[in-house]
């Protein structure tokens, strides 16, 4: 019983923050949307921020697990990246509110949320670090190459979500695949991979 109330509050955090923004959201909004009492809220969470961070962790974990599973279905590194990106972009397109929470609102929810967000992105670096072994000159690339690629992807994706175009994200796969592969394999090979379906 306690668990389902917690889940309802997490869902409420996703919905309400997507609609009103983090700053304007109150604990009263969350309890109303979840249909739970204020007492129950404070039994489960210390404050609004704690509830929001729990909702963010849930969304980030689901996305990371889906991407990792898709990545592992393929052998060659460019195919692994493509499979991971397809699942990422489709997940965000199907659940635009989760997309907003995980890539836009998290940046507006204060320093703790921002640090949590950056740490979650850091956990994606191993997917791209494999490119250093795959590419002929991969070992000579800057140590930060994977972080750059993650910044390129999240920069564009967050812009599109903020502009209300989350559902069209899968259309951007060729461009995003190009940008993720190009530091490792160069423009010719990246363009070739991006052109394949």
């Amino acid at each position, binding site marked *: 019983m306690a668990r389902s109330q917690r889940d309802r509050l997490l869902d409420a955090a996703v919905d309400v923050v997507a609609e009103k*923004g983090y*700053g304007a959201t109150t604990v009263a909004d969350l309890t109303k949307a979840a249909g739970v009492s204020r007492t129950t809220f404070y039994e489960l969470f210390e404050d609004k921020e704690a509830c929001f961070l729990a909702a963010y962790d849930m969304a980030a974990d689901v996305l990371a697990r889906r991407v990792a599973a898709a990545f592992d279905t393929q052998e060659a590194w460019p195919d692994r990246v493509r499979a991971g990106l397809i699942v990422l972009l489709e997940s965000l397109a199907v659940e635009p509110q989760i997309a907003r929470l995980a890539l836009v609102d998290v*940046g*507006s*929810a*204060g*320093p703790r949320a*921002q*640090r949590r967000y*950056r740490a979650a*992105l850091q956990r994606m670096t191993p997917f791209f670090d494999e490119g250093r072994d795959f*590419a002929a*000159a991969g070992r*000579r*690339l*800057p*140590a*930060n*190459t994977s*972080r*750059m*690629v*993650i*910044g*390129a*992807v*999240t*920069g*564009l994706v*967050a*812009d599109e979500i*903020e502009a209300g175009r989350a559902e069209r994200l899968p259309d*951007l796969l*060729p*461009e*995003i695949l*190009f*940008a993720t592969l*190009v*530091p*490792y394999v*160069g*423009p010719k090979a990246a*363009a070739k991979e*991006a052109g394949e379906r």
Partner: protein
Amino acid sequence: MAATTETRRDVLLEAMVRVVGRKGYEATSVADVIEEAGTSRTTFYKHFDDKHDCFLAAYDMVVERVFATVVAECDGEQPWLSRVRKGLATLIGIFAREPELAQTAVVEVAVAGAEARQRHWDAVTRFTGYLEDGREELDPGGELPKHISVMATGAVSGLIFDELVAGRAAQLPSLMPDLVFAMLVPFIGPAAATEEMRRAVQAT
């Protein structure tokens, strides 16, 4: 008289940038800002409706100042690659010298509400506009992806954001080679971007 009023407003804007950079937007109060500026509460409310109003004006001032400095350092006659390297070095120099400004302009602006985020987005779009010039010079065939400038900017701003959140603004210049690589690699590929990275090292 008018000059004094204008000056007081500017002093308040500068104070806002410094206080938010130090304490964070949420924790900053009007009292903090007037104390930092050495002005009265009456003067503050003569110029601004509230903290948010003053922050937006301060953010606009920072953006204009940063753009003016970066553009002044970039000779329009130089090739695009040199302009990008020089512009990036100028930007990083400002952030390293004024860590509170960097924190306010890059990190805290995200926390200050929808209007602030929109202005930040407009500023970033202006920056990517300069990058777009690279298309004509480098890619007459038009084969580069449509959103290449947004992605190049995302790569660079992600690295800068992480350094600022970790409190390493002063060390940003040591990241210049990586930032140059990140900005250029989608346009010119890894071999040429590595070459530009070497030039950035020699320039510092």
